[in-house]
């Protein structure tokens, strides 16, 4: 009985890397296909949206997986997008400088709200609703400063150059943005993995289990929570900026407020909070669902597509609480465990 086991960890790792490489090559080649056939233009647009939103969702799950349910991530997206766009339009500041300033603003806001929250132990429902208030503040400020931001009518960054401007980060060729979004998405996953394998992850896991016990064991609770919150907020702000640069249009309804905050949480829960690709799967599901319902139903019955969408979200939460990917992985693991048990018995 000295046969080499089929599934050594090394072999498994290799298979996973090969699969990832194939997926990466397939994703990278989409814009090349588009140069051959215009048919790919629409799928490519959808994929850019999926990758940008996946970044936002992955960022949310960075803290959401530790029980820090924020309903304020719409605010971080909005701050990132609006600060960059306003600096460009009114101060002529290139996004190359505007983006760092916007991200610093996001980090500052996350700190101002996060620090007292964690210091004074605002957790659970209370944390969710305090951050919800933050979402509303940002939305109301955008509405109140409508002379500059355009209010609910939205805001368009001033076009620069002839459709390809590195200075203004404006590209009419969607392929360029496809690659930018791709890099950003992979970066988000990389950050998730870094956090997953760090000591902070153990600290945060301990905190989400029992805050007092982990504080007694020497975990710096406030500091750990603050670190993950600022990281999560900044990445979400980046997603908001990318969305603005890609669409060249933002409004309070698309990048801020309670509706966007809820949308973020939904997609993550639909995909799976606790797995790396869960938020991405959530983005794929929610965006494809919304788009296909929109295309299938068309404009004949306004509201029918979102009605079905809302209904499906409720059903998802009730019947698939671990999310699609989380549910599949769990089923897979149970099957594997059952198989091993059977093999042991035989």
């Amino acid at each position: 009985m000295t046969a080499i086991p089929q599934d050594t960890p090394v072999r498994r790792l290799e298979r996973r890397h090969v699969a990832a490489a194939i997926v990466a090559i397939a994703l990278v080649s989409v814009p090349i296909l588009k140069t051959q056939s215009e048919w790919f233009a629409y799928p490519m647009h959808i994929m850019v949206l999926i990758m940008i939103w996946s970044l936002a969702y992955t960022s949310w799950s960075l803290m959401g997986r530790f029980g820090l349910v924020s309903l304020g991530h719409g605010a971080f997206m909005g701050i990132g997008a609006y600060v960059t766009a306003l600096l460009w339009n009114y101060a002529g500041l290139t996004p190359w400088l505007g983006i760092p300033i916007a991200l610093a603003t996001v980090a500052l806001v996350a700190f101002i709200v996060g620090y007292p929250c964690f210091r004074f132990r605002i957790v659970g429902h209370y944390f969710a609703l305090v951050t919800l208030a933050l979402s509303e503040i940002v939305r109301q400020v955008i509405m109140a400063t409508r002379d500059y931001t355009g209010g609910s009518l939205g805001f368009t960054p001033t076009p620069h150059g002839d459709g390809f401007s590195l200075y203004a980060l404006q590209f009419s060729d969607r392929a360029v943005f496809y690659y930018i979004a791709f890099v950003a998405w992979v970066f988000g996953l990389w950050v998730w993995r870094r956090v997953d394998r760090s000591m902070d992850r153990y600290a945060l896991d301990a905190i989400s289990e029992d805050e007092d016990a982990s504080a007694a064991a020497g975990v710096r609770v406030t500091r750990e929570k603050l670190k993950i919150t600022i990281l999560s907020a900044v990445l979400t702000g980046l997603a908001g900026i990318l969305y603005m640069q890609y669409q060249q249009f933002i409004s309070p309804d698309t990048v801020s407020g309670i509706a966007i905050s809820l949308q973020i949480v939904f997609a993550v829960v639909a995909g799976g909070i606790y797995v790396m690709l869960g938020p991405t799967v959530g983005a794929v599901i929610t965006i494809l669902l919304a788009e296909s319902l929109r295309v299938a139903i068309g404009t004949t019955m306004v509201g029918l597509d979102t009605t079905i969408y809302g209904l499906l979200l409720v059903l998802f939460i009730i019947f698939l609480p671990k999310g699609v990917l989380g549910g599949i992985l769990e089923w897979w693991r149970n099957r594997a465990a059952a198989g091993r048990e059977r093999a042991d018995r035989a």
Partner: protein
Amino acid sequence: MDTIFDIYLLEALINGLLFGGVLALLSLGLNLIFGVVDVVWICYAEVVMFGMYAIFWLHGVYDLPIVLAALLAIIGTGAMGFLVHFLVISPILGSAPINQLLATGGLLFFLQSFATLLWGIEFRNIGLRLPVLQWGELFFSYARLLAFGIAVIGMAAIYLFLTRTYMGTAIRAISQDREIMTLMGVDSRKVYLVTSVVGGSLAGLAASLLVLQYDVHPFVGLSFGPITFVICVMGGLGNMVGGFIAAFILSEVISIGGFYAELEWGYVAAFVLFIIVMFIRPEGILGKKS
């Protein structure tokens, strides 16, 4: 200081007080449900929106008397409260709080879109013009005064229901200790359902007051939903007296902020004040230490 200026400020203060009555009523229903069932209905304002539509159709289109229309709307939203609890909340009572929050959040999307599907996105008004009252140099809208009066009466009725009836006592008991009460022979599922129906009916009452002053459209819930949650949390989730006080504090802030700048800045000030209060008293102004 100018005397005219003072009078306008006084008017803003009184309008804030009247607005606070409606907000207090809104937060009362939400607080009641949270205190008993331990679930935050993110979609509460959307139930109110359906109530407003009901009155719009019954009174504005089918010409029923306004009081009858309001009564039917209250019954309708009460039934909605029953359905929300029976279909959505009760299957997931045991799951993580975030999932419960999200399920009602999904209902928010569903109800908004469903209203869009049924009635379109036009702003609709019941076309009832109530007179403006003049008292000295002050002007009040009759609609606001009426809304305030009915809100106070509604809250008094709820108070009597909770303190003077068997069911009310059971509801209060459950909100204090949900494990013990089931051992005492209280059917907690029945109490949850009754609470949800009462909470839904309160949404209908609030709807019949709001529809006097505001146009109804599918997204109207977003304009007063968030402030309602904030009031509940600031008062201490589940604490009805705290919610009552918070409603008046925040409505005054909104009204005075709207007086000095635009209404949106009033809301911004209210939300900022809320966050500051949370830092000073995380359990709410009247919440108990946990």
